[in-house]
Structures are given as C-alpha cells and as structure tokens.
C-alpha cells in the first residue's frame, strides 16, 4: 500500500466560480441559490488554523459569564460535554433531553471505540494521518479545516476522559490499549470493552451533574424541544413540552446549541434509539438554518438481520468484530440453505478478502455494506427469506476461536456475542453469526461554519446533528471523537466569540416572535389530537421507512428517487388527514410525541430524496446507480460535485446553496481499498 498522506498543495479555483453541472436530475425540484462560504476558518497552513482561531476569538470576562444564558438541547456526548464545560466556565446553562435522565442519550449505545492520534503504538500515527484518513474515508466531501482540527484535539479527549475516571481497556503494564478499526491501517482506537460510548457518556454525564450541583447547569429531563425562537434573525430560545404534564414552556437565552443527535430513524428501522428524531434540527431548519448533505446516510455492515414485521429497531454488532471475524457467503446458491458448518472451506466465498485484498474485512463501512447487498442480490444470501430474498451474510469466529481460544474471543467481545445470542437464540461460539447492513448514522445535518454556528446567528450545532466532519462517509470510532471534540474543546472557544458581543437585548415572553413560536406548537398538537382518523402514527412511520429504505437506501437512482418523492408527498397528506392520536395534550402521551416526530421525518425524507437526486455521483454512503465503474465501484465526479449541498427551507421547493470544497493540504483521489 502506498497510501501515504499527500501534502502537496493543489491549486484551487476561487470561491466565486460556480461549479458546472451538465446533468441536473433534480431540476424542477429546487431553486438554485447563491453560493456560501465558511467565512470563519482562518487561512494559512492547516496545522495553524485552530490555534489562530482560538487566539482571535474574543474573550468573555468571567464576571459577565453568569449573566449569559446558554441553552443546550441534547445530553449525548456532544451536549453533555458542552454543558459541563460551559458550566465550569461560569455561564448559566440550561440542558434539555427527552429521556428521563441525561445519561440515557443514545451515545450510550456506541460500542466499538473512539479514535485519537496518540500514536501510543508507534505505528506511524499522527494528527496529520488521522486527518488524512478521515478526509479520504469521507470520500473527499468534508471540509478540510474542520477535519484537521478534529484530529488535532483528539489527543486531549483521551486525557480528559481518563482524568474523569473512564475505565478504558488497559494492557498488563497499566497503559492504555488500542485496537484498529475499519478503513485505516494504524491502531488508534481507544475502547472500553464493547461499551465505549456508555463509559464516555457516563464520564460526561458525571461532569454535567457536578455542574448541576455547583448551580451552573439546570437540567430539564423529559422535555422535548418543539420550536426554535428566532427574534430579529437571531436564535433567542426554544419552546418545549414537558412530556409528563404536557405543559408548553418558553425558555429564552442568549445563545442556543443543538446537540440533538442524528435522524437515522427517518428509515423507521435503524440502530438508533426509539426516540431519536430530527425535530429539534428540523424546526431550526424551517426557521432559517440550512440543512447540509441530508442524503449522506451511513449503512452499517454488521447488524442483526430483520426477523419479522414486528421489528421495532435493529441492533448493531460492533464493527470491531470485523477485526477477528471473517465475512463470507456460500459460493453456490444451492448451499445457502445448508447449515454453514457443513459447507466446506473451498465452497465459501470470503468476498471482502477476495475483492479487497489489502483491507479485506476492514474496508470502510459503505464498501462492506454494498458488497453484502450485492452478494444477497446475486442470490447468495443466507438466513430466512424476507420477501423472496435471503438478506444475511455470515460473520464467522471459528478461525479466531482457534487462534485466540474461546477465552480470548470472550474477553474481547463477550457482551456483543451474548447480545447476539439473546436476540437471535443462536450461539455465535458454535455457529457463524448472520449479519446484514442497517441504517446507523447520518453524515448530513445542519450546516455550520468553522465556529459550528449555523446560518441563524446565535444557533450553534454540535455532534451528529451537524454535517461538518465526516463528508460522505464516517470512519468507525470517529463520531464519539467528534461529539467530544465539539463539546469539550471546540464549541466552548468559538461560542465565546459570539457571546462576547453580549449582553444582548432582553426579550419578553410576549414578544410577537415568541408568542408566534408558542402558538405554532400548540396548534400542531391540537391538530394531531383532533384529526381522529384511522391509522396509528407507527404505521405511517413504518411505511415512510420502507419508502426511504427502498429508494434512498444503499443504492439510489433517478427514477427511484422521483417515485419516492411522490410516494412521500402522498403519504404525508394522508397522515395529516387520517392519523389517529388518542389521549390528551396535558398528560404523558407517547403517541402525541411520536406524531410530531414523524411529521418532521416526512419533510426531511423528501429533502433527502431531492438531495440524492441532485447529486448524480456516487460518493461514500451515497451510491447512485447511474455513477459506477465497470466493476461496480462508486464513481465520484469532482468536477461537478465537490461541494456541500446546503438547503434552505422554502416549502416543497427548497433553495440549494453550494459551498465549494477546497483542499489545500490533501489531494483529491478516487478512493481505493483494493
């Protein structure tokens, strides 16, 4: 492999030259808008930009901080870390989550690990290499200055977490252990058995609760943000619903941070938690925050396959399993029904090892997922038939058990393998596991500049809810890194530049913009409760999910996407006329909560399809059937699509603003993992 970081400077066109697009599949579905720039990233050598920005960001006098009110929606890694850090700095913070405790945010479910360029293994790692791997893994669709910063602060995260008492895995000498993760060739992933997200989140949660005790942070659990308050063009607060009493409250502030996580649940079935939603982000989008690259979805290769129509969610099996497990399908279709243990070695096709000899089972997620889909489409899938096709491939630990012993495998993976057995009733130590790709993560999200500020001044967005760092595909163990980088080390610096302009004008609760925001929330609730139709919210959600998976999932085409847009619009109309939500507005009402979320998923789903339609190229997690090489690999078109698609809300015909991607520290190449 000659995969060395390329640091040659390439010439780049000026910002103002519009990119040429000769085929516009999405013509008629959107209006072209003015190009946008990220005006906050300093120029100069990439390695100096963050230091420069931190230095240039204005300071806030400690005595004034108490008087500045900060709202943070979300208590996952991105939100809890930010709330704790802002609290420590002395700001007056309100923190919101929809669960009954901040500790339950979905970051808790992350299994595999967190990357950091510590180079503890002396295997040639560095901030630059982590930067390079992340840009390459993202298929050259991320903003290089943000990614470099992420790589740069990654090392501080590990120090912080260890000091908080996060029990990372350690070697016998007492030093931290590392493993390698998909898409890279160095060992830079820190982990806590298969529960890294849990341990990192508990660390951030404890730091948050410490600030609650100190009086700098107030937590609002079981509170759902249902609207953003925008006054004179700036974000000034949120409207929430108390999910126990139904009370609609107004919370005003000087700045609002959304750390509300990803929207993978637009597909209904995903590895996200039941409550994960787009509502916080979508409400902000409707008020003027651009939504960037919404179609970039990560489909994770190693999940437990669907078992039936009752399925409410899909369970991920950490990608770390690919370090020791080998993925295969039978060579012959006739063997697909056989007990896998009876299939001879020479009749097995270890297809990732065959197609991608240098990365083998460790190719990036998008590539592994599509390869599995292709095997099943060819008729070589395994497991039960779902609608006439077997949707599963084997993930086999037999070799690893021989090599490491059962104990060795248990020590590394036992909670994952136990979980598999609990869900499927099959013992993975005795027979190969069955896995299939599932929706897992969204690279798209609200557009932010280098400061993580959205197009609404005073609205900042962190973690999975923003679009910033992963381009068209995220590498494993990089979302935890990004969430904590944003919350502990980036936002607290950039937000002070905004807050330093305070104190801001006091807003009263009867300001027309506040009254309007609150009324729109109560009207919507009133509508859902009075339709009194015939179909449950879940049944609509499931149908929307099927449309998205079919036409905006692992492979997308012009005809499919156009069909999906029509179907979604029809279903959405029906939903507003025929949904059945029982119960009352002023009590705990889970159907009502879901109705609001599904309503926003409809609009998001439509935009995802329009975005996918516009991008007639294949990149990362976005694979357009019309854009592939002869041997079926993704084909990018840098001449036409090296931009971030930032969508401005305008009803059914959104406005597209392009942010051109300019690489100065890295050269764009077609990815190859062969």
């Amino acid at each position, binding site marked *: 492999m000659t995969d060395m970081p390329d640091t040659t400077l390439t010439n780049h066109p000026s910002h103002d030259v519009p990119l040429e697009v000769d085929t516009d599949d999405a013509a008629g579905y959107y209006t072209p808008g003015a190009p946008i720039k990220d005006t906050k990233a300093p120029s100069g050598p990439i390695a100096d930009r963050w230091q420069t920005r931190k230095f240039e960001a204005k300071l806030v006098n400690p005595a004034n901080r108490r008087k500045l009110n900060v709202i943070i929606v979300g208590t996952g890694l991105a939100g809890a870390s930010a709330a704790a850090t802002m609290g420590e700095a002395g700001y007056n913070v309100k923190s919101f989550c929809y669960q009954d405790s901040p500790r339950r945010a979905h970051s808790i479910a992350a299994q595999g690990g967190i990357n950091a360029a510590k180079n503890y293994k002396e295997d040639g790692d560095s901030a630059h290499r982590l930067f390079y791997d992340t840009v390459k893994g993202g298929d050259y669709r991320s903003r290089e200055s943000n990614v470099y910063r992420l790589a740069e602060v990654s090392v501080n995260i590990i120090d912080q977490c260890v000091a908080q008492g996060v029990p990372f895995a350690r070697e016998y000498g007492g030093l931290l252990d590392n493993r390698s993760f998909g898409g890279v060739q160095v060992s830079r992933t820190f982990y806590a058995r298969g529960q890294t997200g849990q341990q990192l989140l508990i660390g951030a949660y404890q730091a948050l609760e410490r600030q609650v005790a100190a009086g700098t942070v107030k937590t609002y659990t079981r509170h759902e943000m249902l609207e953003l308050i925008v006054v004179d063009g700036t974000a000034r607060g949120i409207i929430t619903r108390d999910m126990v009493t139904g009370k609609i409250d107004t919370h005003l502030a000087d700045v609002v941070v959304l750390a509300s996580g990803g929207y993978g649940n637009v597909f209904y079935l995903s590895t996200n938690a039941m409550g994960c939603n787009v509502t916080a982000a979508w409400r902000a989008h409707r008020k003027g925050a651009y939504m960037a690259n919404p179609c970039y979805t990560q489909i994770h290769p190693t999940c437990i396959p669907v078992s039936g129509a*009752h399925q409410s969610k899909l369970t991920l099996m950490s990608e770390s399993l690919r370090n020791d497990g080998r993925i295969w399908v039978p060579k012959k279709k006739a063997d697909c029904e056989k007990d896998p243990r009876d299939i001879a070695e020479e009749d097995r096709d270890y297809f990732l090892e065959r197609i991608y000899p240098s990365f083998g089972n460790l190719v990036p997620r998008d590539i592994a997922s599509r390869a599995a889909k292709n095997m099943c489409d060819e008729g070589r899938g395994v497991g039960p038939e779902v609608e006439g096709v077997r949707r599963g491939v084997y993930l086999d630990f037999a070799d690893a058990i021989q090599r490491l012993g059962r104990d060795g495998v248990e020590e590394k993976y036992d909670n994952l393998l136990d979980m598999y057995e609990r869900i499927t009733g099959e013992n993975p130590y005795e027979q190969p596991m069955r896995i299939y790709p599932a929706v897992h993560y969204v690279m798209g999200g609200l557009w932010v500049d280098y400061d993580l500020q959205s197009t609404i001044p005073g609205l900042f967005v962190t973690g999975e809810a923003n679009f910033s760092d992963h381009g068209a595909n995220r590498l494993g163990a990089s979302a935890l890194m990004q969430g904590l980088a944003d919350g502990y080390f980036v936002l607290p610096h950039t937000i002070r530049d905004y807050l330093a302009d305070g104190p801001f004008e006091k807003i009263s609760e009867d300001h027309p913009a506040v009254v309007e925001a609150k009324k729109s929330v109560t009207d919507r609730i009133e509508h859902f409760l009075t339709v009194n139709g015939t179909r449950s919210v879940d049944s609509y959600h499931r149908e929307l999910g099927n449309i998205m998976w079919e036409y905006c999932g692992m492979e997308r085409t012009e005809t499919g996407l156009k069909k999906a847009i029509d179907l979604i619009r029809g279903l959405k109309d029906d939903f507003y006329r025929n949904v059945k939500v029982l119960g009352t507005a002023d009590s705990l009402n889970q159907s009502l909560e879901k109705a609001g979320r599904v309503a926003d998923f409809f609009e998001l789903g439509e935009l995802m399809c329009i975005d996918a339609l516009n991008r007639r190229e294949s990149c990362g997690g976005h694979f357009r059937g019309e854009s592939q090489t002869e041997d079926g690999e993704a084909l990018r078109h840098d001449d036409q699509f090296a931009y971030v698609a930032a969508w401005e809300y305008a009803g059914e015909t959104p406005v597209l603003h392009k942010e051109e991607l300019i690489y100065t520290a890295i050269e764009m190449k077609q990815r190859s993992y062969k």
Partner: protein
Amino acid sequence: MKLTLKIWRQPDASTAGKMHTYDVDDVSADMSFLEMLDVLNEQLNARGEEPIAFDSDCREGICGMCGLMINGEAHGPVTTTTCQLHMRSFVDGETITIEPWRSDAFPVLKDLVVDRGSFDRIIQAGGYISVNTGSAPEAHSVPVPRDNAVRAFNVATCIGCGACVAACPNGSASLFMGAKITHLGELPQGQPERDSRVTNMVAQHDHEGFGGCTNIGACSAACPKEIPLDVISQLNKDLRTAIKHGH
C-alpha cells in the same frame, strides 16, 4: 402464541391506579417483550383505547430506560433488561402480570412509567471526579494496574435502570451506589474525593427515601448487568473509613 396480560394502569401521579386485563394474540417467539407490548398498543389504538405508557429508548440493553416488574420479577425471568427479554422465555396461553417499579423514591408518573430523578441526585451528591475540561494531565502519566481497571470497568457497566431498588424488599439503592463508589474508588484518579464522595452520596440516598441494606441480595440477583453484591461491602468499608477520617 396467545397471552393474557394483567397490566397496571394509572392515569397520572396523583390518581389511583389498578390492574387491567388484556388478551393479545399474534405473538411470536422472536419478538422482544416490548415489541409484544407494541403489538398490544396497536390493537388498543385501533379500538379507541389509549395505548399503555411504558419507557424504552435504546432497546438494546444499554440506556437503562426500560424496566418492568414482570410476574413480580424486576426485568422478568432472565438476567437482562426488559427490552432484551424475548417472548421465547414465555409459553403459549400464559398469563403475565406487568407492573411498574415500586419504590417510594420512584413515584409512578403514568401506567408503567416512573420517575428515577433520585438517581441523578445521588450522582450530583458526589458520583464524579472533579476535573475541569482542559486541565487533565497526559493520559499515560498515571498507569492503572490492569486488575483495578478491569474491576472499575465491570462495575461501571451499571445502566442506572433501578431494578435493584425495585427488587429490594427495603427499597434500597445500595447496589447502584456501591457500583459508582467502587468504579471511582478503584482508580487512582478517584482517590482525592473518596471520603467525601461516599458520605455525600449516602446522605442523599437516605434523604431521597431509599431504604437501608440488610444484605438480602435480591438487588444483585435482579441486576441485568450482574453488578456483584461485594460493591455494597466496598460501600460500607469506604463509609467506615470516611467516618474514621472525620467525614
């Protein structure tokens, strides 16, 4: 399979509740327990009855949001969370009783949903290591012996579900608290605040109305993460040491 479900229904915190009986068919062995309740809720919604409120989020046994008393056992008959319990653990024709966690410190909010805010307040009282962002030393400056790291991890897996409290005849949260005391106490970083941590957390625990521990062990038996009972001995030991130190 077909099941008869006896389920606790209560409109809100201040109104009395009672058990209701429902029949549900079309249950498959591959369903999770909560998916079975989803099926029932779809049926209730279709016939105009308000669905049963119950908590869940991750549905993969890690967030700690779910938790039901199933036939009198916290999280039901298998050592796991309610969301990871599957219907293959039940038989056709069975009657299953489903109630919320019962504890003075966990008031019922509606049907099967309870308020566990008291757990957060116990953590606020001292369940952390005081280190501000940015002030941490280089991670490798303090090695942690592997055995300590492993024990810390094993007890840090507590998901804060509250099954230990629900299972305890005294309604004690000693297992939950002991897990945190042990996690932080195993690590060099946790030493400076060791005494104050335990005294403050125990004081908050008692203030919240949790009961005292009389070493019955029902907590550990019900714990989906198999937190061992010896964390309570550790808790008591740390408390004695702290008192000796004048805390």
